[in-house]
């Protein structure tokens, strides 16, 4: 059991477990948190999972956790680990089953007042046009041959099929296309699971949400993103569906042998890994990139359905019903990046599991309009609570390999949430708050109750005060669509 006394306080919002805490640690473990968030993390096994992450071969500087840390499997959720290339490891469990699970935020030219009379109809249109639910299939047909193209091109595939606008792509992490994807590294089973699900939301904690901007903290950054107070915005939270799940399953199984081959000792088998430059590591990275591109394409097709829904419901009722992309960002991914470590520019493989890339101003991969403000970071809250748009900072580049939090972070188990919250009652409460709810499963809704999550305001406050992101705008929900 790890206790608060085991930590050294490094800063007001930064805590460290020294490398000496456990013999197998290769680096110290660090958590960004205030007292209350740290206490919440100590109530479960997430900190132990972070210490386990600190044992990975090739890990540099620190095993890091964001303030939304909570218990996952293998890595904690909210975990960041960078390994030195070329020989440091890559771990499928460090990315997770939902490869490139992420968030896309869109803006509109519609105000909250304008949309209020139509919000129920819009929520219904979104629910029917954006397929959701367990194992749901999409309305988009993708042939076997075309599927390879999708895996390699990601959002660019969607552009070719007419589901994207050219200006959507630069406003997507990696322009919606992660390099290095090789469909021949993906199993037949993964293809079978993924091909029918393009353009679907799925179930669990995935959602589409219509929001209103209730506060702007940084006018310049908000202006660059086209955001203003009182505006209606839309969020998508989903990933690579059964395709990513199968790829992770395949490689976690295959890597059980790889750890023996490379004589890697691990405290948890879900952390299985292989040297990045090994045949196994390269194969996983190529397959993971296919899933990352699938997820970019998936969220792009969902944006197409959202645009259709806005047109269906609002054409002729508001002056401009257009939906434009603000940014799309992954929060389950392994990326090859160059960071400054001990004064040396070093190429590393950054695993972010339930953590968001948050590159600061000047990053060349950003579209010109965002280069001065830093990369947009999208932090969804729990259902019914606020979400935030942030930007990456120079501080995130210096401290966290350009990473920050990804959400509120759970505090209550799903089983406990189901015992404490009734789905129909929760829906009634949300509707009473003026939030239109369209959900396929009421028990599923109960598991995602706001009381099951940490306070997103507190999480965002910590990352801002720690200097690893800066607040731009606050969003509050007016419609929630879930599987």
């Amino acid at each position: 059991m790890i206790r608060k006394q085991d930590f050294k306080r490094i800063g007001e919002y930064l805590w460290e477990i020294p490398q000496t805490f456990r013999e197998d640690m290769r680096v110290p473990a660090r958590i960004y948190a205030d007292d209350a968030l740290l206490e919440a993390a100590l109530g479960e096994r997430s900190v132990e999972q972070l210490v386990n992450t600190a044992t990975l071969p090739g890990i540099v500087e620190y095993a890091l956790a964001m303030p939304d840390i909570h218990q996952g499997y293998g890595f904690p959720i909210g975990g960041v680990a960078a390994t030195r290339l070329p020989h440091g490891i890559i771990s499928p469990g460090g990315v997770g089953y939902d490869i490139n699970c992420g968030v896309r935020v869109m803006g509109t030219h519609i105000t909250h007042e304008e949309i209020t009379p139509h919000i129920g109809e819009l929520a219904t249109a979104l629910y029917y046009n954006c397929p959701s639910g367990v194992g749901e299939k999409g309305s988009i047909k993708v042939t076997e041959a075309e599927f390879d193209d999708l895996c390699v091109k990601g959002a660019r595939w969607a552009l070719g099929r007419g589901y994207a606008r050219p200006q959507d792509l630069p406003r997507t992490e990696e322009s919606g296309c992660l390099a290095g994807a090789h469909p021949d590294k993906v199993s037949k089973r993964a293809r079978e699971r993924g091909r029918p699900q393009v353009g679907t939301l799925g179930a669990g904690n995935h959602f589409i949400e219509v929001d209103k901007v209730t506060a702007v903290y940084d006018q310049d950054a908000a202006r660059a993103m086209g955001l203003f107070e009182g505006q209606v915005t839309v969020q998508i939270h989903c990933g690579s569906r059964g395709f990513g799940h199968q790829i992770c399953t395949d490689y976690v199984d295959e890597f059980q042998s790889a750890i023996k081959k490379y004589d890697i000792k691990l405290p948890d088998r879900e952390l299985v890994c292989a040297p990045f430059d090994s045949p196994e590591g390269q194969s996983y990275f190529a397959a993971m990139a296919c899933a990352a591109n699938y997820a970019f394409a998936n969220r792009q097709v969902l944006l197409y359905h959202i645009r259709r829904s806005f047109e269906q419901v609002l054409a002729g009722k508001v002056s401009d019903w257009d939906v434009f992309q603000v940014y799309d960002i992954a929060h389950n991914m392994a990326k090859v990046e160059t960071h400054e470590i001990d004064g040396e520019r070093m190429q590393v493989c950054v695993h972010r599991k339930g953590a968001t890339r948050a590159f600061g101003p000047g990053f060349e991969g950003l579209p010109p309009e965002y280069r001065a403000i830093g990369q947009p970071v999208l932090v969804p809250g729990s259902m019914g609570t606020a979400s935030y748009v942030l930007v990456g900072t120079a501080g995130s580049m210096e401290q966290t390999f350009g990473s920050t939090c990804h959400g509120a972070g759970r505090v209550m188990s799903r089983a406990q949430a189901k015992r404490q919250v009734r789905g129909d009652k929760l829906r009634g409460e949300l509707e009473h708050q003026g939030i239109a709810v369209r959900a396929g499963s009421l028990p599923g809704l109960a598991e995602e109750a706001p009381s099951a999550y940490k306070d997103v305001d507190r999480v965002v406050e910590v990352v801002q005060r720690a200097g690893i992101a800066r607040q731009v705008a606050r969003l509050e929900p007016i419609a929630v669509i879930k599987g």
Partner: protein
Amino acid sequence: MSRQANFSEVEHTADWAIRVRGATLPELFVNAATGMYSLVADISAITPTVEREVEVESVDAEALLVKWLNELLYHTETGGEVFCAFRVEAFEPTHIQSIVKAGRGVELKKQIKAVTFHNLQIISSGGGYQATLVFDV
């Protein structure tokens, strides 16, 4: 041992977990599958219409359990088969041959994306076996 005592839900913050027991390893496997599908559906109400042979191999008993359960999940997602009855025909710690029965068109309460290896260890205790499985949901 009653079916209720064969598996129980364990608290896990983000995902789902069950603790499974069995007098023998094959029984542990059957109870794990029964426990997993009990989380997502009322399997006592399923009338099986599909029978399938599922055979897998892996490096050890833990990896075999994960692979076998993931194999079942694959058929659930691609074929809509919700499994309710499991029989082990041949078993070694690195190989299982089984006959499983499923119904189609069953409403799922929840989706299990995958079975994980997280802290997975099959422990021999008191003349039987025990394991805790964490599912990604």
